[in-house]
């Protein structure tokens, strides 16, 4: 009985969480490198959650329907892994890719950014997602969703050069955000 209680106490101790967080999730990962200084391939299972709901208990339907930041509650150690990025090289987040799986337990493959000295932990680039018996889905949906939501912004060039809200702010405050006068002087220095 004493030994059993001691075992449970050990499981509940903070250092157990540290041990769990140090688990190697790279086994069987097929994540492609982005040549990031602190990237570690990571394949793991977890539940897609609305982070604010998880922390505060304020839980709108469907993980906020795209209005909230999403994360993965990793099954192996109950840690929250923040989904910072999807698999597109176009400055795109992962909310659009994770939202269809809200509340579901899925398998994810991607790159963990881990640097205990920085420090940074549990921050993740999602490359692909697999639900139950479905095929893997690549996390690349942002630009498709953006195009559907911005039908008047069709044209040449990447989405971020055509986004109406971004363009309105740059038109008002410049690329540096310091006003058009500063911007013009800087562009002269940069290009002339």
């Amino acid at each position: 009985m004493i030994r059993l209680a001691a075992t449970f106490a050990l499981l509940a101790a903070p250092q157990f969480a540290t041990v769990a967080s140090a688990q190697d999730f790279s086994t069987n990962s097929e994540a492609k490198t982005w040549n990031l200084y602190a990237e570690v391939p990571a394949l793991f299972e977890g539940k897609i959650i609305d982070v604010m709901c998880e922390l505060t208990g304020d839980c709108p339907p469907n993980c906020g329907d795209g209005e909230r930041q999403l994360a993965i509650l990793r099954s192996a150690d109950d840690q929250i892994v923040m989904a910072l990025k999807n698999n597109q090289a176009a400055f795109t987040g992962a909310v659009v890719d994770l939202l269809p799986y809200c509340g579901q337990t899925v398998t994810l493959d991607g790159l963990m950014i881990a640097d205990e000295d920085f420090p940074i932990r549990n921050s993740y680039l999602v490359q692909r997602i697999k639900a139950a018996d479905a095929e893997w889905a690549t996390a690349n949906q942002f630009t498709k969703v953006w195009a559907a939501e911005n039908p008047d912004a069709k044209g040449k060039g990447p989405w971020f050069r055509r986004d109406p809200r971004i363009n309105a702010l740059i038109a008002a405050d410049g690329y540096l955000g310091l006003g058009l006068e500063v911007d013009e002087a800087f562009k002269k220095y940069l290009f002339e």
Partner: protein
Amino acid sequence: MRRFIAAFMGLLALPALAAEGERITVTGEIIDTWCYYSGVMGGPDSVVGSAHHTCALWCSAAGIPIGLLAEDGTVYTILKLGAQDNATGGDTALRLASHTVTADGMFYARDGINYIIVEDVLEDFGIVNLTHEDYDVVPSFAIPEPKE
């Protein structure tokens, strides 16, 4: 003995309890967390402030979480920004990209990440981190070259 095990297993089966928050007031810069953490475009000093402002707009508009980089170097992932429910991708987040602000809100820490749910932006100092003086623009193509 059985009661002890049953009680312990019952405890394990409970859903995770909401963390306890702490009210804080923080002054710092609103940053793009992906570029800051990943090093994808260079060191942390180059992906803040005016040099990185345009990229911060792109990343925020596309749903990458924004953070509040406090004066002591702590980064708080922003889950809500004032009256706007959606901290990332919303108009307030875009308007305040790269700005230094004083924010009042609830602080949570879990699994190595700090979070803040900003109730009020008490003061907006604008963009005061003039990193373009050292780094030009990051990435270098942020400002399109004028056509001849």
